[in-house]
Every structure is written in C-alpha cells, then in structure tokens.
C-alpha cells in the first residue's frame, strides 16, 4: 500500500468504518484507557496473551477517522505480536510521522496499512490521533501479567 497526498484516503475511511477489533474481551490480561487532551478522544484497549504474544485485542475507540483507523489496524495486525514488537511498531510509526523516517521493510510488508498515515506527517496536531491507540496498546501490554520480550517486529501467523 502506498500513501497518497490526501489525509482522508479511502483506506483510512474504510479502516475506520470496519473497526477491526472493536469490542471487549471476556478476559483481558491488560487494559488501558487513554484520552487525547486536545479533543477528549478516548481509546480503551484490552489485550489477551498466550505466553508472550498477543492472542487477542479489543478496543473501544471514540475518536476521529485517523484515531479509529489506527485502532482498527491494531485490531487486524496486533494479534501474534509481542510487547517488544508493538514497541517497535509504535516507534517506527512515530518516527515516520515526526521525522519522515521510512518504515522498516519487514514492517511495511506485514503491516502495510501503516503507510496510509504518512500524509498525517504534514499535520503535527494530528500525530496524537494516530498514535493514541498504539500508546494505549503499549500501556495495556505493560499492565498485562505476561508481557513478551522478544524485541524485533515479527510477522504474525495468519
């Protein structure tokens, strides 16, 4: 997936609409709720773990299209990742937004939807919208009882 110039690409709208992972888990290993201080948007993220990897995520996201699309992409791709992998994804996304750093090839290949957020780079006030669900996921993992430690991004089994 390549990024166009438009902030509101069809992919963003489709992902926001699809709301992959929306809902609640019956039993979560970790949970976090984060607010965007600027607008009051809110993400509640839950994770379930199997050993050191994410077996399921669920989120309830009240936010703009960017925030909802980001949460939806997490719903699609986070299962199969471990804590360190999610940290790496978040850092790569943040670097893309703040510095224009290209996404690592392995990440771009396995989480191609991240590229749809590239136009947000030109709008610093919107970076938080994209990052909020990822930060909520990281916090949920930190609160979980069995966060993984494997490090680099690993493509989840499909």
């Amino acid at each position, binding site marked *: 997936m390549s990024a166009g110039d438009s902030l509101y690409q069809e992919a963003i709208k489709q992902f926001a609409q699809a709301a992959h992972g929306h809902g609640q888990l019956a039993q979560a290993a970790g949970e976090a709720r984060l607010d965007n201080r600027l607008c009051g*948007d809110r993400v509640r993220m839950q994770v379930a773990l199997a050993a050191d990897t994410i077996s399921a995520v669920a989120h309830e996201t*009240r936010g703009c299209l960017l925030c909802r699309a980001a949460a939806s992409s997490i719903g699609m791709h986070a299962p199969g990742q471990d804590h360190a992998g999610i940290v790496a994804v978040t850092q790569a996304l943040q670097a893309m937004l703040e510095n224009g750093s290209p996404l690592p090839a392995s990440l771009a290949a396995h989480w191609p939807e991240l590229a749809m957020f590239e136009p947000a780079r030109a709008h610093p006030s919107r970076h938080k919208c994209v990052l909020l669900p990822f930060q909520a996921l990281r916090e949920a993992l930190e609160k979980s009882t069995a966060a993984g430690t494997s490090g680099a991004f690993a493509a989840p089994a499909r």
Partner: protein
Amino acid sequence: MGASTLLTGCGDANTLRAEFPLLAAAPELHYLDSAATSQIHRSALDAVLHHETTSRANVARGTYRLAEAADLAFENARRTTARFLNATSADEIVFTSGATASLNLVAHAFGNTLQAGDRVLISVAEHHSNFVPWQMLRDRIGIELALIPVRADGQLDLARLPELMGSRCRLLALTHCSNVTGARTDVAAVVAAARQAGARVLLDGAQAVQHGPQDVRALGVDFYAFSGHKCFGPGGIGVLWGRHELLAAMPPFLGGGGMIGGVTPALSTWAPPPQRFEAGTPPIAQAIGLAAALEWMLGLPWPQIHAREDSLCRQLIEGLRAISDLRLLGPDAAVSRAPIISFEMPGLHPHDICQVLDTHGLALRGGHHCAQPLLAALGVESCSRASIALYNDAADIEALLSALDAARRELT
C-alpha cells in the same frame, strides 16, 4: 482623532481587515477562530516595536531616562485599560499573563480570605480556566463548590440561583459569555442575587472584550478578567480588574520583586495594589501593545460593528440550520448572544471537519474547547466552532457553509 480611528470610522469589515497585517497578507484566509485568539491589530504591533526599540527597560526600578520612559508607557497602559473598562482608578488594574492567570489570582488571593464551608458558585458553562482553579481551592481549603446548570440552549439556569447559593455563598465566578455557545450571562440578575446574599461577583470576560469596551461599574461586578490576545492585542498579557477595597484586602498571590513594601530576614510587607499582585518583571511591552489595541477599540463605531456581527451570526445560524443532521449548540439567533457558533455533525469528527475546512482556507477550532463539563451537559464529546469578529464578512460565512458540504463529501 488618530489616523486609525479615521480609517475605521465606518466600521466596514474590509477596511478593518486591512488594519490587521496577517489578514491583509492573506486575502484568501477565512479566519473564524477569534474566540481562541483574535488577530493582532497593527497599532498593537507598532506599539510593541516602538517600545522595544525606543524605551525598553525594566519598570519601577530604574532612575535613568530610559527606565522612566518605560515606567511612563507602562503606567499609561494601565490608565488606558482602566478607561476601556470604565474603572474608577488605574490602581484597580492588575496586569497578568492572561485571563487564566487573572482567574487563578482571584482563586488564590481572594480564596485565601475564605474559610472551609464557604461556598463558591460557578457554572457548568465555564472554561476550564474558571473551573479548575476553584476545584483546586476546594481541595486546598475545603470550600464548597456549587454549579449552576445550563438549559438545553446553553444559557445558565439562573432560576436556581437562590437555592444554589445557600447561606454561605461568598463568590459567584461566572463567564460573561460562553466560549462554546455564545450565550451571554444575565449579569444584572447575578449581581442582584449576589448583593442580596453579600457575595462577590467575578466575571470571566475573555470572550466579551473583543466585542467592545466593557463598563465594570455599570455591570456592578467586583472582579473582571480578560486576555489581550482575544481583543486584538499581543499574547502573554492579561488583566484583572478588581474593586480597590477588595484588592487591598487580599493577600498576594505570587511573591518576588516589585510586590513588597519591605523585606527583612524575618518577614516581608506588601506593596499596595496593583503592584502587590505583579511580582517580578511584568509583561511590559505586551501591556503597552494591549493598550494600543484597546485605545483603537475605544475609537470604533460599536453599534455598527455589533449590527454586522449579529447579522453574520444570523446568516451562519440560518445556513447551518439548512444542513441536514447538523446540530447547533447554543441560543437562537434572536437571543442576545455573542457571535460564537458551535455545531455537531453526527458521524463526522470535529477534527476531521476542521482539517478539511482548512484546505478550503477556513480556520475553525474543533474539540472540547476547554469546556468539557459544558459539552457533557449538552450531550456531546466535542464540536466544531466558528467565532466571528469585527473583521469577518459575509464571504467568510458563505465559504464556511459551502465547505461544510465538501467536508461531508470528503469524509464519508
């Protein structure tokens, strides 16, 4: 009569717009966010530049001629501000860093004269800057904090005043005009109730001052707070007006140079107001710039400007009403209100709306507007807001209404 007054004597929006360097340089910009920050008038910029290049020195400290020039300019700024508010004396004008600092000053200094169990009454419609300081005072000394609710149209439900004030109400701290709904507070009713109970009244005038000079004596209030950046002046400057006898009875808020009578190793004494509340070097150039903006405002034909602002407000409200599914927040156009219009479009987030509007040359704010309790009371999480000032015209409103259609198409 100055050249600026001659230029703006007709109050025409295009003529006024030409006096704002940023707007003059960006004819394609439809600036509808003056409730957040108004544009700065050329006279304020010129005054700041003139002061900084001819009279820059600290105030109330030096005896050399440059310092005396700075003293004179700073104290003249205080006198101009007093005239803008029709205050009894320039000694009632305290310069702060902004309305938020002014409100915190009252919450600390006047707050320190209160006792546990005393009541302060605010409203659900307050900006966080007139909400949080009172919660902090409650948590610090145990005052009771009570809230005036709002009606469905965002106006304060003043029918509940006697019940909410109770027997120990010492202060009503209320917005003069909501930064979300544009609803104006019925100050006369508030002041009448306060006088009967022996309570004081603080008005947050942040949203009122850009719509003309205020008369604190006619309003009958005890404190009035506002920011310079919302009335065509520089940022970093605010004003607290207070009745002199009240200021004189209040302890200082911040300690430091300039606010003391004397300091010994054992204790300090305080300067009289307003210096008692101006610890450290004040925002000198900003005060001088603010005064230039206020002087300019004092010369404007406000009846004509109000008529145009009201007309634009009606035009926008009528246009927004014609958009399906759009929910307007705030009073009807027929009600006396400030030209601040907020709205919600279900399914479309205000940040997304405002982002698309930006691509059409429109500057609006979306979010909770630092008024989360009010938005919760109105049943919304966030909203989009258009705020109209004296340099706006019908083309700005038409551009907004047209771009909202485009935003809906782009975002769905």
